[in-house]
């Protein structure tokens, strides 16, 4: 029976690919939007039933790749499957009158397959292939509405994604070489801890995964790209796809062997992201941008904890379950919050209050309000985070609360007399429920502790940053204080302007330089390409002689060297 169940792993990625293939068929394409929820079903089954730590070889595929589900992977896989499923239900309704449904269904399923594949890849080559798939093919989802702002966001997304790909590729090559050419994930992870492995490997991998997971300051694509996509795509981008970067770290960081430099760097960047991004979120004007920054902030928390563990050399078993649980809660809650943005205009009258109530509970859970699931997963994270990390996590409740308050404040206003359609309300409620309930369900299994271990009084005592936040918010509302409006992608605007200025300056310098080179034949618009053209032309005219001369000169030079 187990033999049959391992087949769920290949099916997990093949099934969405098949659905993507169907979206290419003329006539079928537009209808495939209705079948979006079907994509993650094998993954859900695999997360529940597939045997753990049992590799499935796929002979002949890539470099004899394979798939394997680890215990940590199962939580990531299950969380992703639930989120993709409900976002798919939502999308089926949301995109009913879309002008490009076939393209959406195609790339949705391809990205889904890549997202799930990252979690179950057993070797780094398969992992890299799936990672590239989830990373690059999400571009069409980001630019789906083709608005100028989305196109700009897409370009930023693509540039950073390609940079990330290259960083990861080189990092994996170095690591694999350190492992003697092995490509198994465990072997490569072990090799990253060896002193003989090129030290750049770990740094490049952290940078590459950091780009995907929104590690400050590599996060700039995230707050512009996530809001640009259609609501259900934003939900999976922020809920599940950023987790591909986190999972990359979970799978490959050599936990268990202290790596002070990389670990400390990750700690500093992660925890500064935790606070800075939350503060930047407060200055955002759009609800989706607030959420995107909040994602950067929460992922900063995860990466900060991973950094502490990496620097201290904590065993994987003490860190990864907590990270998985935190990621699960964040993914589901963030997904629901994004779907809430799409629902807000459709919730008139009394519906609005219901929506706001659910969103507020979700927000409080993210903040870490005692008794809610978020507090549970945060308390799990405090163990591996060390003393300072635990304090920072506790303090972050303040900034997170401010960000969530901002989110509720800038939620789109409702059109009067609108009732939310069932197929959009249901996924929202289901995700919210799952976010609040699944951590409770899994906590004991995953961490080996009872969720009710600590006494309530101490928990309440730790909640003072939340109380402070409530006071601050109340005060701000009372005096009518408004936060400043910051641009999406904070550093991005100045950087882009600076880059444009630099390019223009370089071009002008080149032109001036080449003009001085060709003073005898002044030509107004000489650029470097034309100069090279001319050199190549001169060479071409006397090619025969030139080649012989070159060969002889080469020979003479070599002779003189020896």
């Amino acid at each position, binding site marked *: 029976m187990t033999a049959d169940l391992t087949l769920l792993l290949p099916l997990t990625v093949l099934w969405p690919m098949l659905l993507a293939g169907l979206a290419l068929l003329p006539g079928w394409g537009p209808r495939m939007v209705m079948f979006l929820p079907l994509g993650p079903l094998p993954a859900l089954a695999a997360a529940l039933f597939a045997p753990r730590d049992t590799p499935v070889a796929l002979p002949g595929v890539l470099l*004899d790749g394979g798939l394997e589900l680890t215990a940590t992977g199962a939580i990531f896989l299950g969380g992703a499957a639930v989120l993709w499923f409900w976002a798919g239900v939502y999308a089926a309704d949301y995109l009913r009158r879309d002008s490009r449904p076939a393209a959406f269904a195609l790339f949705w399923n391809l990205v889904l397959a890549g997202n799930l594949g990252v979690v179950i890849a057993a070797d780094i080559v398969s992992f890299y292939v799936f990672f590239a798939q989830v990373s690059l093919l999400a571009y069409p989802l980001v630019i789906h509405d*083709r608005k100028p702002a989305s196109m700009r966001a897409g370009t930023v997304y693509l540039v950073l994604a390609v940079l990330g790909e*290259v960083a990861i590729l*080189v990092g994996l090559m*170095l690591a694999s*070489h350190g492992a003697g050419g092995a490509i198994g994930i465990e072997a490569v992870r072990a090799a990253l801890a060896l002193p003989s492995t090129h030290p750049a490997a770990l740094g490049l991998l952290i940078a590459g995964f950091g780009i995907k997971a929104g590690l400050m300051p590599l996060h700039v694509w995230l707050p512009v790209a996530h809001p640009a996509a259609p609501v259900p795509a934003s939900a999976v981008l922020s809920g599940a796809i950023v987790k591909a970067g986190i999972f990359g770290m979970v799978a490959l960081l050599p936990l268990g062997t202290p790596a002070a430099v990389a670990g400390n760097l990750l700690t500093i960047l992660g925890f500064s992201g935790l606070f800075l991004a939350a503060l930047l979120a407060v200055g955002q004007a759009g609800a989706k941008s607030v959420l995107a920054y909040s994602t950067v902030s929460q992922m900063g928390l995860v990466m900060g904890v991973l950094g502490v563990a990496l620097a201290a050399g904590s065993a994987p078993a003490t860190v990864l379950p907590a990270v998985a649980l935190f990621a699960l809660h964040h993914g589901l809650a963030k997904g629901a919050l994004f779907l809430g943005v799409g629902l807000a205009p459709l919730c008139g009258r009394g519906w609005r209050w219901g929506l706001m109530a659910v969103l507020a509970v979700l927000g409080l859970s993210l903040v870490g309000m005692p008794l809610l699931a978020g507090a549970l997963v945060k308390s799990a994270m405090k163990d591996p985070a060390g003393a300072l990390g635990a304090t920072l996590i506790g303090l972050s409740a303040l900034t997170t609360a401010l960000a969530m308050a901002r989110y509720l404040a800038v939620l789109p206003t409702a059109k009067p007399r609108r009732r939310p359609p069932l197929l959009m309300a249901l996924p929202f409620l289901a995700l919210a429920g799952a976010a609040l309930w699944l951590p409770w369900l899994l906590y004991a299994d995953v961490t080996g502790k009872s969720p009710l271990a600590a006494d309530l009084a101490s928990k309440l005592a730790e909640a003072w940053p939340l109380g402070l936040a409530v006071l601050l918010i109340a005060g701000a509302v009372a005096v009518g204080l408004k936060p400043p409006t910051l641009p999406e992608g904070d550093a991005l605007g100045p950087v882009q302007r600076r880059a444009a200025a630099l390019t223009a300056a370089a071009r002008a310098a080149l032109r001036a330089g080449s003009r001085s080179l060709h003073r005898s034949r002044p030509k107004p618009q000489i650029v470097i390409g034309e100069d090279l053209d001319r050199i190549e032309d001169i060479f071409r005219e006397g090619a025969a002689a030139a080649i012989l001369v070159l060969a002889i000169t080469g020979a003479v030079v070599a002779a003189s060297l020896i």
Partner: protein
Amino acid sequence: MMTFAPLLLVFLPLVAAGVSFALPERLSAWRNAANLGVAFTKLLVVAYLLNATEAGLVFEWRYEFLPGHDFVLRLDRLALLFVTLSVFLWLLTTIYAIAYFDRGPNLPRFFGFFNLCVLAATGVAMSGTAITFFLFYELLTLATWPLVAHKGDDKSLRAGRIYLSYTLAGSVAFLAGILWLQSLVGAIEFAAPPDLTGIPALTLTLIFILCIGGLGVKAAIFPLHGWLPEAMAAPAPVSALLHAVAVVKAGAFAIVRMIYDVYGIGTVAELGLGVPLAALASVTILYGSVRALMQSDLKKRLAYSTVSQVSYIILGASLIGPYAVIGGLVHLVHQGIMKITLFMCAGALANRMGIKAIADLDGAGRLMPVTMAAFSVGALGMIGLPPVAGFISKWYLGIGALQSDAAWVVAVLAGSSLLNAAYFLPLLYRAWLLPPPPDRPAIRELATTRDRMLILPAAVTALVALGAGIFASLPFSPLGWATLIAEGGYLR
């Protein structure tokens, strides 16, 4: 079959060439049938040969044409790698060329030389001695010239002239090198590499530079690459061929032969020639990419991209490590498949919509989706994005470089990937995301005149490029075959 199989591969295109030259234009249907028939038959022969050679058989045909100099056709695994690639792509290019030209002028001449060209390319692959090799290599030069100058306008004639002056000069250098070496060690047979002990290192180095310098012209190594972008004046099927299989690959293949089967990797390493050649290949890789980025003409951008990509093969050969050997060999095939896809697509775009400049690509994806899909696969493969085959080459080259303690090569590969992304992704952006200009033929109109045979070959090669990446570790995949070659004797 044992001895005649190599001869058959040379003889068959000769028949097709004769038929093409002889038949008048009104019997073009017969000419096409003969061309396709021969191309298909050769594919069957190659399929048989692959099976036999995998089992360890070596086919050889030998004839003493000068005292002490044998004319040898020999099909070892390395030869078969190149033969398979050329025979497979030739069949597709023939299909494509027939659709592309339809009823153009001077087609008997074109198809005649086209077949002589395939004859020469297979001959280059199968040559067992240096002199045999030189004969076919020169035949290739001469048979390609009428193809480059096919259109007969000033630009094409100029391109033809430049092509000849480059390649003939290269041949002179190569011939000088080979003759010098032969004067020292006697006739050179690839199957039994000459014994170079006792020859001064300086002499060996000089000969090596002469030979690689000569062969480097066809392989378009910087700064000997100038003919290649000019040769873009040729019709699309010729460009596709020149770049993917025939001329450029013959040069790269010859360099691989020189390093492995004449000098031997041990000698190359001892002489310290590997690293300078790797450095030159790296310069070519980056220079070609930068130049590609500067082009505004689609075919020229692809041409400079070829300059860059072919040097991956030379890089692999010069790095002298097990994975690098495999990476270089496998890229010989992968680059061929991906580049021919790109050129056939570029030709189809020019043929159907008159697209030549990159700025004209706007909206091409909406009007010719299958062509642009194939083009996209080729382009992504060139960048090295998985799961297209180019990724496999890059992986092996990267690990191979590290095995040879040349970590800087990884940086070159990464830089090249980024540059490739910089000059290919904007093309895809234009084609898929920008609206087509209003003066383009409407989709409906295109659909009524759709010529499947113009698109099918590119679609097939695109699928093969995907398959070669996704199923890289199957035994008869390019990677599987390259590994077989490497294990057969080129690993230290």
